[in-house]
């Protein structure tokens, strides 16, 4: 039997878990593209929490905001990947540790 009511906290915990995975991935991974994907994972987690709250408080604005987040994520992904390509051309590597021109 599917329960009719799901406690809000489940959604929030899941959202938090996804977010945490994203951050950990960001920290652990060395491939820049993988790092980017971790960022997308974080954004997804946040989206989930938005929708959950929207349903909880019966505010449709939450879903609208999810829409916006997705749009921005798309734009950001496009630009980010373009940058990666540009960096790859000069550095020949996708290893983030070797892109350390910001070093003091």
């Amino acid at each position, binding site marked *: 039997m599917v*329960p009719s*009511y*799901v*406690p*809000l*906290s489940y*959604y*929030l*915990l*899941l959202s*938090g878990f996804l*977010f*945490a*995975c*994203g*951050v950990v*991935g960001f*920290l*652990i*991974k060395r*491939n820049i*593209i*993988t790092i980017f*994907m*971790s960022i*997308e*994972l974080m954004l*997804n987690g946040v*989206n*989930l929490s938005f*929708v*959950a709250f*929207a*349903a*909880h408080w*019966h505010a*449709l*604005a939450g*879903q*609208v905001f999810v*829409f*916006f987040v*997705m749009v*921005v994520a*798309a*734009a950001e*992904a*496009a*630009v980010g*990947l*373009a940058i*990666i*390509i*540009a960096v*790859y*051309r000069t550095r020949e590597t996708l*290893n*983030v*540790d*070797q892109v350390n021109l910001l070093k003091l």
Partner: protein
Amino acid sequence: MGGAVNLLAQRHPINSALSLIAVMAALAGQYLLLGAEFVAAVQVIVYAGAIMVLFVFVIMLLNAGEEEETKGSRVAILLGVPGVLTGSVLVAWVVLRHSGTASVAIGGLPGHPADIAQLLFHDFLLPFEVTSVLILIAIMGAVVLASKPEATARKGD
């Protein structure tokens, strides 16, 4: 959840990309359960369909291989991971303690496209327009950044 963990576990970025797609699909299902039909549809079409495809393209283009072992930053692992874990544990603890009996009904808030559109074009018109400009700029930027250097140089003279 499994997808998320797998993303971390995989060494080859393409595998991580595929697990991410899996995560997104699962999330789309969650949205449906919450009654956000429009959002779920957009998730599948835009996120999983467009963005991840883009990712896969780039991975293939750059021929990203398995991740090498390089000596990275110790700080990231030593400080960051415990930090994240602490933060999430704290948040979880708060959520669990104070959530009480809050619950969401299945299919709680029907998110008809008509209703969303109503909101989008009335209350959130300005953000809507701004984001469209944002996308435009992003496209231009991506094109410029990703074009070959000789191409831009040739454009210059």
